[in-house]
């Protein structure tokens, strides 16, 4: 359904040009949960911005249902890492979740139901009239997720959404996202730098190389559903996968370092 086709992105021009994404190619299937993992500074955010249409690629293209993406599509939602800065602080939780629905031209009652259902699915029903800054970090990110769900996207992009919450909240949010994904039947592209998280959540993992980014490896995660923070993580298959991904990233990182040293110039690092 989503096809990243020879995607490349270079920032700047001439001598100062930085190649963030070299040549990326992969596909995301309907209802799939794809985790994109790679070393820090490997252009994960750049990739998501190209997929979402917020950033124009330098080479290649991204297609959704065979349509080239050249701006944010209506069937796509994006959840940012910085939840605190992506919610509108002057709007209540209800208003925040309802605001993007105006584009969809629902009937009033229908829109209200979408909002309430989404807020209920992230367990924030009692907080509809509160303001984002009255809530904890984890709750704010849940508001952002509810807003994305109410928008009824076919595909939801998530940019390290749980990177700035504490470990316990993070585990709760991971289970929550698996649960709402089942409820809403939405396709998820989830960017993370946390290997455990990518194995725990994903149906498939795309491992990226350091910048200029390419696909290092694609892995199917064959862990039983529903996943469980304790049981799943105790399975030999989980341990095997996380070790595999870890080595895959590490090996490539070292290779890049050696290459950089031998050429006597600093390794190019994208954002």
């Amino acid at each position: 359904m989503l096809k990243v086709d020879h995607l490349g992105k270079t920032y700047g021009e001439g001598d100062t040009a930085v190649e963030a994404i070299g040549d990326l190619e992969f596909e995301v299937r309907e209802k799939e949960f794809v985790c994109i993992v790679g070393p820090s500074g490997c252009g994960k955010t750049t990739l998501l911005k190209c997929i979402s249409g917020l950033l124009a690629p330098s080479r290649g293209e991204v297609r959704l249902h065979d349509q080239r993406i050249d701006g944010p599509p209506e069937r796509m939602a994006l959840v940012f890492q910085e939840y605190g800065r992506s919610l509108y602080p002057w709007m209540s939780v209800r208003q925040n979740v309802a605001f993007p629905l105006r584009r969809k031209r629902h009937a009033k009652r229908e829109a209200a139901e979408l909002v309430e259902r989404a807020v209920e699915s992230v367990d924030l029903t009692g907080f509809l009239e509160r303001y984002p800054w009255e809530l904890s970090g984890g709750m704010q990110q849940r508001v952002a997720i509810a807003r994305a769900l109410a928008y009824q996207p076919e595909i939801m992009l998530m940019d390290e959404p749980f990177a700035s919450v504490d470990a316990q909240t993070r585990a709760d949010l991971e289970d929550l996202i698996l649960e709402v994904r089942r409820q809403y039947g939405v396709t998820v592209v989830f960017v993370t730098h946390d290997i455990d998280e990518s194995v725990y959540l994903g149906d498939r993992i795309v491992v990226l190389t350091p910048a200029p980014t390419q696909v290092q490896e694609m892995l199917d995660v064959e862990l039983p559903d529903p996943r469980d923070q304790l049981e799943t993580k105790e399975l030999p298959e989980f341990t095997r996968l996380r070790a595999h991904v870890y080595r895959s990233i590490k090996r490539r990182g070292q290779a890049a370092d050696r290459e950089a040293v031998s050429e006597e110039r600093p390794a190019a690092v994208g954002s």
Partner: protein
Amino acid sequence: MTARRRRWLAAGLEVTVPILVLVAWGLWSAGSNNYYYPPLTDILSTFADTWLFERVGSDVVPSLMRMGLGYGIAVLVGIGLGLLLGQSPRARRAAAPIVEFLRAIPPPALLPFAILVIGVDDSMKVFIIAFVCLWPILLNTIDGVTGIDPTLRETTRMYGIEGRERLWRVMLPAASPQIFAGMRTSLSLALILMVISEMVASTNGIGYFVLQSQRTFALPEMWSGILLLGILGYALNGAFVLIERRVLRWHRGAHASALS
């Protein structure tokens, strides 16, 4: 000392110190024969005779009307133009030298021009007040719009919020803390320019009254006018702060939670 007691003490100081100053002034000026500094009691009784409420209709109302109209125009034009310029770097560059030049002109220097071109009626005063109040509001609005968080901008784009929705429900609220800061600066400018413009060419108004009293050696009247202007400025600022607190409640909340 508990926070509660400290607050009461602060509030108490705010009330008692001005009263003490007034009492000291009253004692010092009591039985004064100094022509320029009449006894406070004289000033206060003149104040009551003049402003409660004999000259309210003839001087206070016209003054406030000019000020309100000039300020109102500055607010509307400043915010409107600011939202426009804030969204376009190119327009901002083109407008910058003009804006910087116009706002650098000391406002009273415009009075002779305004009198000549517009005349000595109310519209001249409204023009001067609006012209001067415009700049802080305009520049702050531009600042507010350009300073909107990139993540918030991208969220808005991602959800396809554009046009009027984007303007009224995203840009304007996001810029409102800066807009209010500009409006507050302009409010004191409006009062100053109201007085100055009434001193130059007018037949009524508080500024006219103060100057006229001085020229006719009615010193207690002059003092009472100055007192009234001080009270007006204080009250206007107080009212403004109340409104600002209400409108920007979310901003204080968000700010406080970001710091904690």
